[in-house]
């Protein structure tokens, strides 16, 4: 039972991590929270649903489709929404408000286009169970766990090994310095939004499989990812993953042993406590202002 809960928690945490890494990547490079992140999650779920119902009934192809659509959407959000503000070095509050505006607009467009109904993927795997060491696991949880782990490892490799990843890490100390040193920061910003969007799309596709697709899915879940990234430390990618796993396991155990109503209270209370006790999170660093 406990073992089963932990696996379940890891699978929830894995999805949170996919979204939390997006928050952290953007925060580490640009120092603001992308409030429009949630919409790429919602779109990921709906893209998968419509791919499966209208085009081709293969979950993996559907997931891939969601990744592409959400990645493109994230790039569009950056180009149409943030880029002007970033170019004129606008105050951070304007970026936050723009993100809020975009997410409000898109959330409601989704409701208008797709209605508030809950959509179940036509792929039937949530009932199948696998037996390991006497414990039963939902197939879906194992798939989610594996897919998120692979995606997170790929992103980690990209950040740690590739030239662009190196540039992103360097630029996260100071975007200005990086740009003076001749690094194409516009390109870095695009890459970061693309990765964040693609991961969010993947998360959306998986969430849709686990919980069905509905318009508020992105907002509800992205908030949890946001909490994860704070628990781990704003702007720290490793921290985001650790925070997400802690939150995922915590939530599953709470809903398993207490009640599912207590689950969300747990998450938001954890958030408030972290802000009181160690606001920089488990792995975060405080960055000073430059005069």
């Amino acid at each position, binding site marked *: 039972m406990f073992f089963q809960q932990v696996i379940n928690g890891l699978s929830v945490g894995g999805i949170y991590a996919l979204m939390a890494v997006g928050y952290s990547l953007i925060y580490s490079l640009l120092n603001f929270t992308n409030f429009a992140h949630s919409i790429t999650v919602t779109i990921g779920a709906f893209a998968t649903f419509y791919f499966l119902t209208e085009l081709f009934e293969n979950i993996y192809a559907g997931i891939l489709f969601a990744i592409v659509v959400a990645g493109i959407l994230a790039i569009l959000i950056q180009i149409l929404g943030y880029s002007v503000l970033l170019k004129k070095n606008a105050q951070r509050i304007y970026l936050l*408000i723009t993100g809020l*505006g975009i997410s409000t607009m898109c959330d409601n467009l989704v409701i208008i286009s797709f209605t508030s109904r809950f959509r179940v993927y036509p792929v039937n795997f949530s009932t199948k169970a696998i037996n390991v060491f006497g414990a039963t696991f939902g197939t879906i949880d194992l798939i989610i766990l594996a897919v998120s782990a692979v995606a997170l490892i790929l992103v980690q490799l990209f950040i740690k090994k590739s030239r662009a990843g190196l540039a992103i890490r360097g630029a996260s100390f100071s975007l200005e310095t990086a740009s003076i040193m001749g690094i194409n920061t516009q390109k870095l910003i695009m890459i970061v939004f693309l990765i964040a969007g693609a991961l969010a799309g993947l998360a959306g596709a998986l969430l849709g499989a686990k919980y069905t697709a509905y318009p508020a899915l992105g907002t509800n879940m992205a908030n949890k990812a946001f909490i994860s990234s704070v628990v781990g430390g704003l702007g720290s990618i490793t921290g985001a993953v650790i925070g997400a796993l802690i939150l995922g396991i915590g939530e599953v155990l709470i809903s398993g042993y207490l009640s599912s109503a207590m689950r969300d209270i747990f998450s938001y209370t954890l958030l408030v406590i972290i802000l009181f006790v160690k606001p920089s999170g488990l792995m975060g660093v405080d960055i000073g202002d430059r005069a």
Partner: protein
Amino acid sequence: MLEYWLGVATLTGIYMIAVLGMSVLTGFTGLFSVGHAGFMAIGAYTSALLTKTYGIPNIFGVISAMAAALIVGLLIGYPTLKLKGDYFVIATLGIGQATKLIIENLPGITGGARGLTGIPPGSSFLTVLIIVVVVIWILRNFLRSKQGRNCVAVREDELAAASIGTKVASYKLLAMGISCALCGLSGALLAHFMQYLSPSMFSIVKSDELVMTVILGGTGSLTGSIVASLILIPLPEVLRFGAVQEWRMVFYGLLVVLVIIFRPSGLMGNREFSIAGLRRFFENMRLRMKHGRAK
């Protein structure tokens, strides 16, 4: 029919108080919150429960509501406003959601998700009107005072503000306190006006609407917030058909993005409406033409 519109007007006044609070926080001090509906909820339930359960007069209920919202606001503001980064915004998200969840999960006390009924009536049109006028007068005084100017300095440039001796974190906390007290007041008035409360009245969407109303009115203009409130708050009452509410939010979102990108100072700019202001505007135009713009 008249009664209906009087009700709409009262409701507009009640929400306007919360918008004015947000205006001090977001418009004048440059802080962003996604959870201020939570402070309205704290105020609403505090006053509702105190008056309903203990039978104390509404006025004391309302004062307690303001105090409760203020205290919670200062408690989460104190540790997070000292930090650089988005910690404060995150704290407002946390408190907004936590408040709603706690109300939903204490059905014995708050009525839970099904709501709280039997709240003593109050908040007549006249009462609300008087309170709105007093609040506007006090805020106008505040913004013309040293304390108000320091808040604006913080919005403009924290480092520059500190370099002229402004205690940045203290003034942020002050703005937070004012906004929370006003949201608490607004919530309490709402409770007695509706005589019914449910947690869904204080969702994150409501918080977002408060911010967006301030942005559309103009960051740094009290008049702008008032005008935006007068237009935007009654709108859902006027538009009551089909998917029009969703379209309204699409429109708000789009407008907010456009305003921020093309005219960050909002519809009214950071000017208050006055004859002197109009004169200044033309004077500015003249000088701008004469000297050209910097850079």
